[in-house]
């Protein structure tokens, strides 16, 4: 299933050097429409320079996955696996807003990404 968005629309946030409240949103994020996502690399998958992102609730996992792949300049044939709770891989058409509601903690959704299957 392909997705509409070609380039990331989410607002970029700098990762704080010490664990604390995220820095001010740069864009015009409506608090209700966007959620905070923290991307964590698994194994020797490249780490994204920016890990914290403000993502629209309706954005799909596939769309986010494509964004990460482009950001990491991955090859077209390389696969990316996304995990929630370090336990399951959400369906590509799943909305991040729903994942945040059910599996978010401390105001953010943590997603692990990996070039190979990490948790089966």
């Amino acid at each position, binding site marked *: 299933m392909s997705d509409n968005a070609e380039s990331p629309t989410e607002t970029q946030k700098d990762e704080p050097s010490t664990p604390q409240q995220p820095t001010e949103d740069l864009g015009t994020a409506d608090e209700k429409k966007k959620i905070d996502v923290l991307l964590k690399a698994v194994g020797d998958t490249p780490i994204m320079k920016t890990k914290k992102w403000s993502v629209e609730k309706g954005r799909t996992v596939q769309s986010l996955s494509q964004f990460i792949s482009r950001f990491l300049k991955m090859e077209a044939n390389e696969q990316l696996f996304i995990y*929630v709770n370090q*336990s*399951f891989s*959400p*369906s*590509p058409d799943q*909305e991040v807003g*729903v994942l945040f509601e059910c599996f978010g903690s401390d105001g953010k959704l943590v997603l692990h990404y990996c070039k190979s299957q990490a948790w089966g």
Partner: protein
Amino acid sequence: MADDKDVLRDVWFGRIPTCFTLYQDEITEREAEPFYLLLPRVSFLTLVTDKVKKHFLKVMKAEDVEEMWFDFEGTPLKWHYPIGLLFDLHASNTALPWSITVHFKNFPERDLLHCPSNSVIEAHFMSSIKEADALKHKSQVINDMQKKDHKQLWMGLQNDKFDQFWAMNRKLMEYPTEEGGFRYIPFRIYLTMSDRPFIQKLFRPISSDGYTHTLGDLLKEVYPVAISRDDESKRYQVVIHGIEPLLETPLQWLSEHLSHPDNFLHISVIPVPSD
């Protein structure tokens, strides 16, 4: 009165009589006859339609055949949704057999996920089970199982083996006695006319003061529109596995007995048909 275990069997063995017709614009060497099949409610389209593919391939050239996909009255059918859910959501109040159109070209990329092999179905199925257990048991039960146990769940579904499946699945239906139920209930509510695919939220089967939540309580909380007030006529049907459970049914019971093999309660909210 039916035993609770009978309900598990009734759910597992539910079938939908279906008529598969080849899309008129597909290129064939001769006329394609429709193909009739009883579809398991709890399975997935791409897992149970090998016979359909074989049937239509007999009248087609290999170069005219790409990935098979299905539509009902113009709506592409998502293979990763359980068959019974697709029927309840799209064809509940239409005449049987369910008439599905078969395509081998022009795969609708925007509407459907690709399904190149059974391992994709298995991965999707297992992920759903893991997600459900994350909600029910903080993943403790599924993580305590071995890889071969996970495989048994999948093989049970793939080969339509009720006993093989439930020998493992019963573990996923247990909970500490003192809790009274699962941590949260894995559910998805699907609406026919909505921009979002489904509603899924955190919802406890037992409230903090020990009150047993019902199906009605769930709807009131996450989709109150589905419940009509006393003074108005019923506008929506709340359907699970083709039936309308009483709104007073405890949610915990529904989760244990009417979940799909993926451990989710897939609930359709459809408008009451106007005669």
